């Protein structure tokens, strides 16, 4: 009965208040959270970190994903990488706005999804296109996994960064949001480092690995560089399903399967 009352109150606020009304916003939070695909794990395969390396990095990952598919349902997002960086640099020089850069970045992550899709075709893994998300449940049920381009479809509506024009919400954010909206079991970022470091380990030899950290701690540390897009931290704070993510090294054999099993093999970042 209490449920019915709070629902009645929510419905009446919905019809009478502005949609940014604080009381309405708070009431909307009392609605239940239904997890749409609770058994699915979302993985992001890095563009620059893995796919740009070619077969030496990608073939073993394909094999590992094919093997993991026997035990785990997976939605596999792709990053963009070096071609996006080239296009961003060029577009920036030409004075183009963030929206145009977003579109260009989306195309690159789409190419990577296409390539990974061809490599996984023999394992029966399809690529989900722009409008294919409607059929994602079927793909997962029939094929055990599906591949998608990780860039969110913000296009000309992308947020504008405080400095410069590089799209702030890119493939890390897109994959996180896919995991969140489907109420997925977990979100795993597959990159080419063992996890999050105190600095960029590629350029700073003194960088040390942080195995576990909370979003608040990470924001407080205000690291100059980061293994994951900064806005993902803010999204994590507000997420209702995905309360932690793990960043793992896809160059180390076996880590994808272990992370899928819930083992701590990289850096776990958790909201709190």
């Amino acid at each position: 009965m209490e449920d019915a009352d709070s629902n009645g109150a929510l419905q009446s606020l919905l019809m009478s208040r502005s949609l940014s009304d604080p009381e309405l916003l708070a009431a909307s939070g009392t609605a239940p959270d239904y997890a749409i695909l609770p058994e699915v794990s979302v993985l992001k395969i890095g563009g620059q970190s893995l796919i740009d390396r070619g077969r030496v990095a990608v073939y073993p990952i394909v094999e590992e994903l094919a093997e993991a598919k026997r035990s785990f349902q997976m939605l596999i997002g792709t990053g963009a990488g070096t071609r996006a960086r080239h296009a961003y640099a060029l577009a920036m020089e030409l004075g183009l706005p963030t929206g145009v850069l977003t579109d260009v970045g989306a195309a690159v992550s789409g190419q990577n999804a296409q390539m990974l899709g061809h490599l996984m075709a023999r394992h029966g893994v399809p690529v989900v296109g722009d409008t294919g998300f409607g059929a994602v449940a079927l793909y997962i049920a029939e094929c055990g996994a599906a591949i998608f381009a990780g860039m969110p479809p913000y296009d000309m509506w992308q947020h504008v960064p405080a400095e410069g024009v590089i799209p702030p919400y890119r493939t890390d954010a897109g994959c996180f949001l896919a995991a969140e909206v489907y109420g997925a079991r977990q979100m795993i970022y597959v990159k080419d480092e063992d996890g999050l470091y105190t600095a960029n380990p590629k350029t700073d030899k003194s960088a040390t690995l942080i195995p576990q950290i909370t979003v608040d701690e990470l924001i407080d540390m205000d690291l100059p560089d980061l293994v994951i897009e900064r806005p993902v931290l803010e999204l994590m704070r507000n997420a209702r399903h995905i309360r932690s993510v793990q960043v793992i090294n896809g160059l180390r054999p076996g880590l994808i399967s272990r992370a899928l099993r819930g083992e701590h093999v990289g850096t776990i970042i958790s909201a709190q």
Partner: protein
Amino acid sequence: MTTDPTFVTKDLVSVFARQTLLDRDLVRQPDRPVVRLLPWLNVVTLGGRSIIDRGVETVRPVVDELRAAMSEHRMLILTGPGVRARHVLGVGLDLGLPTGVLASLMSEEAKQNGHMIAALLAEDGVSYLSHTSVAHRLAVHLSASRAVVSNGFPPYGIFEFPPAVGKIPPHQTDAGAFLLADAYGAARTIYVKDVDGVSTSDPASENGGGQPELLPRIGATELLAMNIATLPIDPIVLELMATAKHVKEIQIVNGRTPGNITKALAGEHVGTIIHATRDLPT
């Protein structure tokens, strides 16, 4: 591990090559101006609940005014969803659906309102454009016609952000119109609502005293800080204004007052103008 010589990344040479794109010092570009793609564009947003839901008595004069303005101005007309979006939001919340799904559902209603407004202007050459067409073919459409109509909601869909409080999608019509106007470098961004602009909730009026006062011109940050309960624009727009490259002013006008849309398009100060605060001389 990462220095293993067998791993050769196939890099393209660019200033961002091998970067995370997250190093603040490396992504800065202070002196590089961003081009206005469509400097003559006027983005006119019609409120769903405030204008379209009011029916023929409100919609017809607004549409007539837009039709008359077409000879002078090139317009992207965007529509909000209104009361049907509230209904579907209510059903969706009750079912436990996530914010991203709620955003997709609400967006559908804004689209239907767009179809209706476009139909009323069809004989004048106005069509409804999808998000894809607005993002990629707006220039050709606005060369063929003086105005087009589209969905005010941004195409965030299932990729909508989870909000800080509750589950209602944070990016709705007002935010969608603003982000799009800024990306195109629009000349004017006008929100057509059913109030004269932004009014203060004068504390005196709550005690039965004075009238709320209309604010003709105010800074976005200042307005956010005032915490007005009955703001006629989504507060997220005031936050987005802080980083916008081009749209430094937005105008809120009362569409129920004949002539207001025409005046706003002509650059007259009717209603409330909200300006980006950081560019003002102090």
